[in-house]
């Protein structure tokens, strides 16, 4: 490490350029990771909040919870080891009742109809006092929605319902849109026009599902929650796209750094040759090259990560940007590991240096 550090200090300009390059690429990788994680979280926050294991849909819904309809009788017949909860699901557009005419307050949301004391109900749900009271994800505040506001929700036939915001929940989004939690009656009134219709969308299960095939009148399908998340429209494509970009950027860093270090090593062949002639072992020289690679990646990564954090602070309100220490750690380890693989070309070059040729003999 001694020689590596000494050379870095002596040739600051040359190495600063490499650090800037690593910084820019690592910034891009950390930034994309934060964005990808934020986006993926906003797709699934509402589902993960359940802390459930399985979800049961109607087979004919073809994985789509929006198209799934189950009868109350089916809910009773499904047996589980653990807890089960009814979920009424429907997309909606809401607007503020008291908004000025020239202000557009329309927002796309998802309605989650739930029963009292259901394990999938957020804590704030218990505080609802009004029959048309709801709790909603706090991200709606950015659109001007406040506690106590009356919101207008329009049915597909043009009828409107009025709900009152009685609380806000955190990190409860579904496919990036806020979730409104309301009673099963309100959900049925909105989705079917009648609170007495004994229909809902899915059964959420904490634990395992038993006799699914035999005990019900229609065909039901049980999904594990991770499998269910993967069926969300666009989710897998989005995660794969980001993962591919991040993976390739890490590989690019490894190659670029490997090439830089290799060229620098080639420039020092005569010096290394003389050192070998003087009896300095190849392993010592190779370690110095490897340390130089690690130091360059380390500084580039630290600056890139700092820039990501600063960007995140400013962008959190306008972009689905989320920090994840575990991902950053994994990416940092991958950066160093791949950069070391790139540095191995230089190690090979060092071991092949013939001191005789390097000395011009």
């Amino acid at each position, binding site marked *: 490490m*001694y*020689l590596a550090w*000494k*050379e870095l*200090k*002596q*040739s600051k300009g040359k190495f600063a350029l490499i650090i800037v390059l690593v910084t820019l690429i690592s910034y891009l990788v950390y930034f994309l990771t934060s964005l990808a994680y934020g986006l993926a979280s906003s797709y699934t926050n509402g589902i993960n909040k359940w802390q459930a294991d399985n979800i049961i849909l109607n087979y004919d819904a073809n994985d789509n919870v929006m198209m799934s309809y189950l009868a109350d009788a089916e809910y009773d017949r499904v047996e589980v080891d653990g807890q089960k909860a009814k979920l009424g699901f429907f997309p909606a557009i809401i607007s503020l009742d008291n908004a000025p005419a020239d202000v557009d307050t329309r927002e796309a949301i998802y309605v989650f109809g739930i029963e009292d004391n259901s394990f999938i109900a957020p804590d704030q749900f218990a505080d609802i006092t009004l029959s048309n009271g709801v709790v909603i994800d706090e991200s709606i505040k950015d659109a001007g929605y406040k506690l106590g506001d009356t919101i207008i929700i329009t049915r597909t036939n043009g009828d409107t319902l009025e709900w009152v915001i009685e609380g806000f929940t955190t990190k409860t989004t579904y496919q990036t849109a806020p979730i409104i939690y309301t009673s099963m009656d309100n959900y049925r009134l909105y989705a079917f026009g009648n609170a007495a219709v004994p229909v809902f969308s899915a059964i959420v299960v904490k634990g395992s599902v038993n006799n699914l095939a035999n005990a019900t009148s229609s065909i039901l399908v049980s999904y594990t929650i991770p499998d269910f998340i993967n069926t969300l429209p666009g989710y897998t494509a989005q995660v794969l796209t980001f993962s591919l970009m991040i993976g390739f950027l890490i590989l690019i860093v490894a190659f670029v750094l490997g090439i830089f270090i290799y060229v620098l090593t080639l420039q020092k062949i005569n*010096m290394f040759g*003389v*050192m*070998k*002639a*003087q*009896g*300095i*072992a190849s392993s*010592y020289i190779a370690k110095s090259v490897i340390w130089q690679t690690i130091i360059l990646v380390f500084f580039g990564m630290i600056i890139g990560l700092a820039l990501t954090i600063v960007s995140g602070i400013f962008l959190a309100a306008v972009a689905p940007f989320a920090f994840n220490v575990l991902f950053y750690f994994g990416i940092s380890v991958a950066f160093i590991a791949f950069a070391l693989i790139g540095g191995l070309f230089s190690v090979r070059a060092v071991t092949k240096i013939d*001191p*005789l040729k390097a*000395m*011009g*003999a």
Partner: protein
Amino acid sequence: MKTLIEMKNVTKDFLNGEEVIHALKLTNFSAGEGELVAIIGPSGSGKSTFLTILGGLQRPTTGQVLIDGKPFSQLSDKQKTKVRFNKIGFILQQSNLIPFLNVKEQMLLHNRISKKRIDKAWLDDLLLSVDVKRFEKKYPNELSGGERQRVAIAKALYHNPSVVFADEPTASLDTKRAFAVVELLKSETKRQKKATIMVTHDERLVDYCDKVYVIVDGVMTQKK
């Protein structure tokens, strides 16, 4: 006088296609404590081949090299590297300094690698004796050619080797500085009881040497 390095019945042949080139014909050589030995000869005569075999950078075709009475040329590359590190000092044409270490750090690199304790009194004595103590914080690019060669001499002697090899140590210097460097090499060789083998094409330097050998077409003969 104790013999520090010996070459016994050494030859070195190279293959050039199907033709065998006898770069070094049957050679016997020795150098002892306090001896400054010059190897002179025209370009391509075999001087560098001789020096690199002596330094363990090439294997002889026949014969052997001994350092401090112990076989050297037959050792493995790893073992030879160790012997070179501990028992041989090198001074090269363009100086053998690492560009990003200052004068003092050049010396102490040996301690860092060997993890031996620094002998500050010895370091100061050496730097003073070659008159570079005042440059100890300077980097090679801040020194003149003569100053760099003086530092290279100090570096070659710092780890207290038995033998010092100097390959054209004055090639990049003007006459005045070249004489000064050889004088210094001689005085340090005597003072520290080393065997110094200097390859040069400059016959004006031989007056400073205890022994002089001439190599022509791979044949070495003693001139002085």
